[in-house]
């Protein structure tokens, strides 16, 4: 089952900090000092300008032997650290993506392809020259040269290069499993593949570009937040710049270095420095769950989803019916009925048959190795008889099958064609199950209830979604009666029975019409329009090329429930941004109390009364605030990369908790932090 499979693949997860990534990030954070790069982040660009200026003032004062070059130097150094720490955060986040891109690129080595010419001959060409529409032949042991659809043949394919999944999968022409991905390896047989992408646009290319962040565009929410941060920066820039004339009026013009220090402390550098790292890390978390998002926008949209459309089969249920109960007709004993059910299915290799064997063995306490008597003849299921069973050597005929077929059969053997189980048949059918009657010769022994079994823990998951404010709608081809029963059992909020691609599309449009964001998963070609229409469409990697192109996320594990995790990552992403913004702004209170008295005491000595933290000297107060401001960025890098703790809870509780931790904490922590730094500076006699 799914959880076990996922466990196998976990080693792919990387530790938060990898020494190789860290080393690379150090170099990158220096390279990112290039102002042309920095200007993309206005908040940190202001800090860099400040660092330049204060360096200049330090050098000027050092040459002139005037002012306080030692203090200027300390401020300048810590401002440079502030910029570097922010760059470092971004570089680490990018580095994790790059490591993955490196791995992918290795699988993209250029291969030779056998392109089919007219008349059925093949010519060897470089895979890099294949264009859309070319047909190539791939044999066992060869790499698939490009993305495409199988037009002829079937083969087992090793897709581990893309999915990390070692178990081979079957790909065949026609139907929903015809897509193959460039870079995967054929293990058996041969196929003809029609190439569906041009060079440079393949799945692998896109994936590399994505993880490298080369195509990373700021998401709408990130832009909105960046605008807010830029706006706040302008406000504080004005507040600080006007202090120069104000203090000149008061009779003590401040040093520019001190004003720069104040400005850097007030503008939201914490969130400004970590903003892009948070976004990149969010994408990376999605990737680590083996989901490929075509854009950060898609991940963000996932966090906003109001309605989740889930296919019943394969998503909510295991997709094959299982025996869940054996009801015994009053004439027979439970163990006897179970034993007959066991014999009837022992040779039945269908999942249903195996589940009957397992259930019957448990009820009748049969040993593992119990076999049917020698000479038993298995009667396989046929659409004509609608039953299967076994003829034992002693002449006993055991049959299981559709109720009306079994009753007809018993009548033929001389029975009365009646059963006391009629009401049970009705009950099982109504509850969404499939009733099978079990007969021994002319007598109905019992009823086997087959049911499409819910995947484990689905009910919990839906409850969790509900606390997050997300409605789930089950999509099924079943009739409304069965659908209602399963919907009730699974705990989904709504269902769409007898679904067709059209009704599915209508449902999405209806939901969107009332302002909701819709997410859905799909794999078939007929899902493609709905996937494109949905705000978040997740295609299964096992699905068709059309589905994959229409979707904005592709799940490499083909696990439809993964959508729930993506939703959580999207939410966590926004939460991390919001929490760090709050923290960053709340920090300003303490910084004011550290710097303003230090700044104003030269003009009005009475202002020393506002030095509530009792910081040693004006210079140590300002330096402590700047150092705190720089260190807090580096201290929050792990949080930015990992995301804030996310628990599915109502908005009111989430808001309260985050406000307490990041809002109230944001006000209090810097008071303590600045005081501690000031004490250390005193101990080191740096003041």
């Amino acid at each position, binding site marked *: 089952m799914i959880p076990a499979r996922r466990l196998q693949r976990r080693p792919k997860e990387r530790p938060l900090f990898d020494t190789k990534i860290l080393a690379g990030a150090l170099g990158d954070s220096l390279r990112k000092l290039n102002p042309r790069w920095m200007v993309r982040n206005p908040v940190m660009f202001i800090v860099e300008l400040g660092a330049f200026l204060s360096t200049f003032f330090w050098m000027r004062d050092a040459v002139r032997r005037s002012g306080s070059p030692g203090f200027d130097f300390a401020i300048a150094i810590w401002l440079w650290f502030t910029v570097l720490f922010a760059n470092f955060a971004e570089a680490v986040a990018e580095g994790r993506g790059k490591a993955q891109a490196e791995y992918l690129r290795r699988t993209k080595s250029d291969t030779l392809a056998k392109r089919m010419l007219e008349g059925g001959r093949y010519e060897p060409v470089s895979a890099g020259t294949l264009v859309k529409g070319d047909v190539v032949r791939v044999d066992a042991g060869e790499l698939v040269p490009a993305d495409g659809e199988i037009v002829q043949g079937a083969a087992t394919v090793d897709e581990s290069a893309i999915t990390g999944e070692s178990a081979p999968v079957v790909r065949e022409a026609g139907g929903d499993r015809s897509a193959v991905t460039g870079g995967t390896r054929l293990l058996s047989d041969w196929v003809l593949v029609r190439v569906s992408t041009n060079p440079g646009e393949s799945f692998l290319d896109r994936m590399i570009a994505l993880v490298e962040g080369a195509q990373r565009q700021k998401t*709408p*929410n990130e832009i*909105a*937040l960046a*605008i*807010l941060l830029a*706006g706040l920066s*302008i*406000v*504080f820039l*004005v*507040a*600080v*710049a*006007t*202090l*120069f*004339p*104000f*203090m*000149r*009026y*008061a009779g003590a013009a401040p040093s520019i270095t001190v004003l720069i220090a104040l400005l850097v402390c*007030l503008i939201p550098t914490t969130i400004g420095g970590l903003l892009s790292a948070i976004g990149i890390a969010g994408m990376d978390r999605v990737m680590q769950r083996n989901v490929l998002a075509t854009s950060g926008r898609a991940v*963000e949209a996932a*966090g906003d989803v*109001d309605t989740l459309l889930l296919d019943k089969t394969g998503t909510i249920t295991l997709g094959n019916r299982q025996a869940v109960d054996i009801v015994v007709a009053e004439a027979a004993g439970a163990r006897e009925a179970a034993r007959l059910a066991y014999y009837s299915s022992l040779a039945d290799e269908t999942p249903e048959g195996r589940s009957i064997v397992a259930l019957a063995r448990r009820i009748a306490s049969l040993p593992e190795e119990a076999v049917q008597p020698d000479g038993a003849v298995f009667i396989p299921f046929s659409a004509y008889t609608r039953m299967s069973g076994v003829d034992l050597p002693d002449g006993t005929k055991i049959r299981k099958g559709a109720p009306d077929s079994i009753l007809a059969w018993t009548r033929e053997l001389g029975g009365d064609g009646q059963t006391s189980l009629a009401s049970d048949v009705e009950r099982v059918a109504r509850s969404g199950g499939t009733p099978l009657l079990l007969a021994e010769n002319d007598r109905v022994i019992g009823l086997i209830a087959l049911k499409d079994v819910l995947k484990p823990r689905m009910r919990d998951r839906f409850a969790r979604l509900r*606390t*997050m*404010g*997300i409605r789930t709608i089950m999509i099924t081809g079943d009739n409304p009666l069965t659908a209602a029963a399963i919907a009730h059992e699974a705990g989904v909020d709504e269902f769409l029975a007898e679904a067709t691609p059209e009704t599915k599309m209508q449902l999405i449009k209806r939901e969107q019409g*009332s*302002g*909701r964001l819709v997410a859905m998963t799909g794999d078939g070609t007929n899902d493609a329009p709905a996937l494109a229409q949905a705000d978040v469409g997740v295609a299964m990697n096992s699905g068709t090329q059309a589905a994959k192109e229409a979707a904005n996320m592709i799940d490499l594990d083909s696990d439809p429930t993964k959508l729930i995790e993506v939703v959580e990552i*999207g*939410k966590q*992403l*926004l*939460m991390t941004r*919001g*929490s760090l*913004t709050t923290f960053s*702004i709340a920090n*300003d*209170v303490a910084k*004011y109390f550290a710097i*303003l008295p230090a*700044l*104003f005491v030269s*003009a*009005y000595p*009475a*202002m020393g009364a*506002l030095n509530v933290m009792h910081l040693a000297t004006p210079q140590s107060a300002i330096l402590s605030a700047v150092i705190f401001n720089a260190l807090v960025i580096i201290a929050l890098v792990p949080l930015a990369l990992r995301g804030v703790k*996310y628990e599915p809870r109502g*908005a*009111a509780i*989430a*808001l309260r908790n985050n406000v307490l931790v990041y*809002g109230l904490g944001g006000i209090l922590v810097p008071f303590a932090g600045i005081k501690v730094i000031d004490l250390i500076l005193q101990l080191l006699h740096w003041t």
Partner: protein
Amino acid sequence: MTLPGWLQAIALFSLVAATTKPIGLYMARVFQGERTWLSPVLRPLERAVYRLCGVDEALEMPWQTYTLAMLAFSAVGFVWLYVLLRTQAWLPFNPQRFPNLPPALAWNTAVSFLTNTNWQFYAGESTMSYLSQMAGLAWHNFVSAATGLAIAIALIRGIARTACKTIGNFWVDLIRACLYVLLPVSCVFAIVLVAQGVPQNFSPYRSVRTVEGYRQTITGGPMASQESIKELGTNGGGFVNANSASPNENPTPVSNFLEMFAILAFAAGLTYTYGYMVKDTRQGWALFAAMFALLAVGFSATYWAESVGNPIVHHLGIAGGNMEGKECRFGVAGSALFATVTTATSCGAVNSMLDSFMPLGGLVPLVNMQLGEVAFGGVGSGLYGMIVFVVITVFIAGLMVGRTPEFLGKKIERREVQLALLALLVTPLLVLVPTAIAVLQPQGLAALGNGGPHGFSEILYAFSSTNANNGSAFGGLGSNLFYDVATGINMLLGRFLVAIPVLALAGSLAAKKAVAPGVGSFSTSSAMFVGLLLSTIAIVGALTFLPADALGPVADHLFVFQGKTF
């Protein structure tokens, strides 16, 4: 601080709270075009006005048209008042034969009344003819308040409507605001004021001999009618220079109480109008609570600072609170309460000299205005100013619950953040930058009445007041060309640079689809949200001004308690 002092404040706040719903409900009905009990009389009149002005009542405007109409109307209003002030000497109703106003003063005054500021670089009783007072200043007292109301209503519509391109009709909103809201109430209130002793005549000033044997000129004029809209429309421009400290404008503690109530009444009522129109009255009460908290805290601080009194005066053997610049009939409490109310709204009428307040007592009015006057605020402008803060709060708080932030079901995205920020940036930019220019200018310093931090407070106050369209003066600051021009520009920008993004915000919100709120989105009417809103106002609004305020009133305070004045 005394029990009667507190009781006065509690009585005022209770009255405001009690009338919020009826007033708000009435305004909601008016602006939704529903029938009210005044309709039988006013509806025919309203129709006649539409016919006369060629207004199509049913026409709905997109925000751009609405804004253009508002700007065009204001432009015409400016020209009208400017011309009137420049020609009053040749026009009737000028018994004192006042000359025409000089260009700089006429500009400053025209802008001042156009923008609902009522900053006065003149003394009314020695400058303005009765015609200028009535047809110029009082006219603007009505229409500038009505314009503010219209903008607020347009924003409310923007929030309430979904997937809609229009936000109402400016002309209809303007006319309804005047006809149904401002005119009837101010008529009644004027009569009440006359009953309290406020003059209402067209006679020349009277010269009388006092008991001591000196001669004194007693001003007259159509005072009560102007006094009533001055408070109700949060205008604040006094008929006479002493404003509501004058026994003519504000004769008794009763008139003082009623004037304070009149200042708050519509702005408070509008919170209910908002809740009613967005179909969730709790939203309105949440804003009411936030505004009320700011007002209550502001009053407590001022009252405390004024009650503690001046230590320098105490050393002279005079105990008690600070009575310098206050009227005996109002006392410390009545003055502190009036000062808080008039600056928490955009009124700017004064019944005592703020320049003579204790530094921290004077800090509260300053901060009130620097926050953008959102503690009920101006008629209309208070509500839309507060909603701008709400949008920013929703954005930050919304992120913290892990969704694209939603405000009443509408997503707050890039454009909304942009517009809210534009409106929010106006206050810090237009207070701090002009103050900085002023302290660097010889002209800026020449007009100062005091030096040191107190002088700095005077400049800072002038630009805080004009930018916030308040109009109260700290006093001590004289008029000269620099201030005439600079405060004029500041009033203009302070009004329209906020109003335009607000209307754009209305348009942007109106066009959005709304989702029914679920457990995934947080409530904007909870106590939690009110707390967050207040924090945002405190941190984003107040922290910006902390350095400047520290160099002004806070430094002044520290000096006073060291026995030093300026």
